[in-house]
């Protein structure tokens, strides 16, 4: 009997999250464990005059207090080679501040006690003395000569410049009938998962193996980073993933605390636990997105796009963390989007400021670039008196033109049908009717608008994933993979692939992703890669088993049918799958894939308060092939919900002294069910030839076009003059009210 799971909306088992049986890292306890509390900088920039730990150390129950003087002079490394430059190592973060603090929240000391609250009491008694220094808090002026330097020994606040060029830009601008230029700004915001970060480290006194619970996302890399920083072999470090209450890019990168907690467990010979509190989370966990762009677009009078120039300043915060220059690189790679440009030039700068370091958040770089480009395309459509949909129709890359490459840049679109996807979004929205409704409501005095955005999304980043399929004694199989589970449903989707390829029921397959000791290597869960990379690796591992069976049966592999736990030859001869040993697969993916997406939003503004309400919101995404349409819909809807928060509510604010103003969930306003419409999700399935399963990424796309579509809808509602002044996010009520005032 065969099993068909790929493409089926198999329900995943969420019961542990619903019935309270989930085991988060905070729920893991080890005998004799101690608790750590991190002492953080209360100022944004200062020379540390002294750190006096005597009083804290004298408190009952306090075991130790460490400062920079107690730890080796190590730095947290960069994870991806593409995110590193010859200079980036100069800006890496030490686990504890040495001599200078550079952002509010930077770790200065760690107090360890027998009880978490005693540790917190004692942490308040660590006496800090500072010489306060000037603060860099603006991305554009950060790179100007004469500005205070975040790392003076490097002589610059510029971490990196990413140049991308395609075609003859000057010549294209010279031919233009119209050129529009503006400054656009995306604000600082971030993921804020409901479960904060947490860690528990323990050293097995017999084997010397260090186990770290609370790993996520990229546990193999974190193991490698810890190995280098702690000076112990990778084989003596084991990272364990627990149930996770949200990741979205920020959870699971190696942070200062990963090193500190492991270091303390090794030094003290006892388990050490640390659970981040919400206020810490808002200053310690990666921030994202803040950047300003000077964008210039050239077009013909009949609405053919010719070229663009983009110069951008992308905030890296006070240090370059494990994601290196991605905050500057990813917007550059996404600025062209799905359009037939004749030429472009991009120059993005990663700059340092005295604020929490920046990493990636769902849809990184692409969300920012899409806002900048799509806002300017709407401005252009307005200037040319074109329907903004028609402007895009005239310029989307046609399916017959794929694969499309903007050589010499690395941007290549291998598959899809962008115009068909865009039309489907408009059809599903009932675009013509929607415009009539909008006009009728406007005639009644309502302030309503329609906006949309089209974009490309990078996903399926390599370099590779491996998978092992191991028979279980009970006749089932365990599939070990190196990706992580952050609530995406990856266990379900990978089990569907493995079960179908093995020809066994899903109940017979367990996906094991949680322990670095079970698989030598793995790159993790980011860049919408888990299904593409681990799914294809699993398919190859099943293929490996089929090959073994073929050898035993003496027939070509293609003739072997896997079903009902047996590998069967055309003759009817068969061997049990469980007798074939382990299946192993490795899927290499040297180049990332781009896929197409689009979003459309209908919004209303309350003119009396400036509040934006999203009335309808649609997102469309080409996933290549949907392994589990229901889970994919939820992923896209969840990402769109975060995009709505980013567009109209959420912002990490700082004052002029670098003090964070959004350190509570009361001040950092995430959307609740009351602020969200039912999100309409459209899945496009245009398989890619770049992998055997034909899949593309899908976990982030709902975010990417959402802020842009909402911003364009708000601008549409505001009308020509006020709409043209909409240059920055988020569109909070006070900002929208400001746009409603006569200029």
């Amino acid at each position, binding site marked *: 009997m065969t099993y068909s799971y790929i493409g089926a909306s198999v329900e995943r088992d969420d019961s542990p999250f619903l019935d309270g049986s989930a085991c988060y890292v905070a729920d893991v306890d080890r005998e004799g464990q101690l608790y750590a509390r991190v002492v953080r900088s209360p100022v944004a920039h200062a020379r540390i005059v002294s750190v006096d730990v005597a009083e804290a150390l004298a408190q009952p129950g306090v075991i130790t207090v460490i400062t920079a003087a107690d730890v080796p002079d190590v730095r947290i490394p960069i994870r991806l080679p593409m995110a590193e430059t010859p200079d980036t190592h100069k800006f890496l973060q030490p686990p504890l501040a040495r001599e200078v603090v550079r952002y509010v929240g930077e770790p200065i000391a760690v107090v360890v006690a027998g009880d978490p609250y005693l540790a917190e009491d004692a942490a308040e008694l660590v006496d800090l003395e500072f010489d306060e220094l000037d603060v860099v808090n603006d991305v554009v002026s950060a790179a100007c000569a004469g500005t205070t330097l975040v790392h003076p020994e490097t002589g610059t606040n510029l971490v990196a410049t990413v140049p991308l060029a395609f075609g003859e830009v000057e010549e294209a601008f010279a031919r233009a009938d119209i050129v529009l230029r503006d400054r656009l700004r995306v604000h600082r915001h971030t993921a804020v998962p409901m479960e904060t970060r947490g860690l528990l480290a323990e050293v097995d006194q017999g084997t010397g193996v260090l186990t770290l619970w609370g790993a996520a996302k990229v546990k193999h890399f974190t193991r490698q980073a810890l190995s280098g920083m702690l000076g112990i072999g990778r084989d003596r470090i084991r990272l364990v993933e627990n149930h996770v209450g949200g990741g979205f890019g920020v959870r699971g990168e190696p942070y200062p605390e990963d090193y500190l907690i492991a270091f303390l467990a090794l030094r003290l010979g006892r388990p050490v636990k640390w659970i981040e509190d919400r*206020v810490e989370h808002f200053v310690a966990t990666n921030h994202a997105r803040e950047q300003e762009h000077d964008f210039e677009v050239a077009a013909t009078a009949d609405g053919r796009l010719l070229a663009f120039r983009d110069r951008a300043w992308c905030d890296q915060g006070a240090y370059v963390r494990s994601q290196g220059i991605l905050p500057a690189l990813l917007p550059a790679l996404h600025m062209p989007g799905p359009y037939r440009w004749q030429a472009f030039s991009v120059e993005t700068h990663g700059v340092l400021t005295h604020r929490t370091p920046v990493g990636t958040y769902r849809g990184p770089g692409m969300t920012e670039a899409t806002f900048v480009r799509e806002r300017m395309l709407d401005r252009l459509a307005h200037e040319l008196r074109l329907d903004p949909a028609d402007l895009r129709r005239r310029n989307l890359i046609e399916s017959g033109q794929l694969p499309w490459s903007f050589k010499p840049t690395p941007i290549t679109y291998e598959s899809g049908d962008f115009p068909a996807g865009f039309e489907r979004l408009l059809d599903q929205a009932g675009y013509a009717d929607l415009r009539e409704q909008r006009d009728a409501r406007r005639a009644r005095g309502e302030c309503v608008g329609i906006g949309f955005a089209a974009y490309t999304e990078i996903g399926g980043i390599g370099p590779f994933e491996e998978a092992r399929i191991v028979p279980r004694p009970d006749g089932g199989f365990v599939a070990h993979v190196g990706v992580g589970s952050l609530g995406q449903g990856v266990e379900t989707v990978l089990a569907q692939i493995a079960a179908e390829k093995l020809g066994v029921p899903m109940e017979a397959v367990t996906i094991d992703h949680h322990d670095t000791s079970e698989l030598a290597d793995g790159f993790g869960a980011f860049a919408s890669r888990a299904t593409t990379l681990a799914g294809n690796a699993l398919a190859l591992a099943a293929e490996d088993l089929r090959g073994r069976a073929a050898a035993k049966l003496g027939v070509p592999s293609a003739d072997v049918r896997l079903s009902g736990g047996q590998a069967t030859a055309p003759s009817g001869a068969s061997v049990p799958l469980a007798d074939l040993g382990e299946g192993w697969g490795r899927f290499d993916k040297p180049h990332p894939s781009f896929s197409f997406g689009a979003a459309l939003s209908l919004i209303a503004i309350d003119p*009396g308060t400036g509040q934006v309400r999203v009335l309808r919101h649609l997102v469309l995404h080409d996933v290549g092939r949907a392994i589990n349409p229901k889970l994919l819909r939820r992923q896209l809807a969840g990402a769109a919900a975060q995009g709505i928060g980013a567009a109209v509510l959420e912002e990490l604010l700082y004052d002029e002294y670098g003090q964070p103003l959004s350190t509570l969930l009361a001040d950092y306003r995430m959307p609740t069910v*009351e602020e969200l419409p039912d999100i309409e999700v459209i899945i496009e399935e245009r398989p890619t030839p770049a992998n055997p399963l034909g899949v593309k990424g899908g976990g982030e796309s709902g975010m990417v076009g959402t802020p842009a579509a909402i911003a364009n809808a708000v601008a549409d509602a505001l009308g020509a003059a006020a709409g043209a002044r909409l240059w920055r996010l988020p569109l909070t009520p006070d900002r929208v009210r400001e746009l409603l005032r006569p200029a």
Partner: protein
Amino acid sequence: MKPPPFAYCRPASVAEALSLAAEAGEDAKFIAGGQSLMPLLALRMSRPSHLIDINRLPGLADLRQGSDGLHVGALVRHAALERCDRLSGPWRALREAAALIGHYPIRLRGTFGGSTAHADPSAELPVVATAMNATFIARSSQGDREIPASDFFAGPLMTVLEPAELLIGARFPAPAPRTRSVFEEFSPRAGDFAFASTAVTLTTHDDGRVRSARIALGGVGAVPVRAGEAENVLQGEHLTDGAVREAARRAAAGCDPSHDAHAGAAYRRELIATLVERALARLREEP
């Protein structure tokens, strides 16, 4: 504990609570629903030496309506106000305001006394108490002290209550005939602290002209403020579009909101105009 260390006691009578408070000194705090104090403790922004839990004190949860007006006990939960059908007509603003406080679980625990004694400038109930000319009743070993709402609030998170005084409730005076009230606020999300709010009580003549109006504004100063000029301009007028707009304009022009990162002063002033206009329009249109 997550909060800084404190001593906890749970008295069984008001007299015991007062003597505990007197003993504990000025760093002690009463706690009822804990919906403001507990977060402040968890953030270590409040460091009381003692917490005196008044949840079990008898007689403080009364909600009584009589010929002398309305008595609201300090332990009346927001949800009790929200669910009380009798709070209509002249008392409607009280019910509407209670329903807008935080989220439902917060309203189940939070108390009238806690919210008013906490005196957050963005809180709803102090604004209603100001519009309705309530009198707060504070008890100490010296007996009861009556404090008009106009004197009760001393600044952001500050009242004139003495450390050993316990707020036991408030009396809302009986309204004149043909008095109605409404409450309006704006918060960026449902349940958030409001950027601005207004409570309006309005008494009309038989012919519908305004006999008197009391308009209190929240979120635009350290304490709730009255919009005196707006109240005056309505005197003797029908609630025409013009009168409503003029009152709204004067309410906005007459307040002096502070600026913060979430809502600037000019924006808060615009919100006041919008909210006062909406409140008066509802008083005109709704029975």
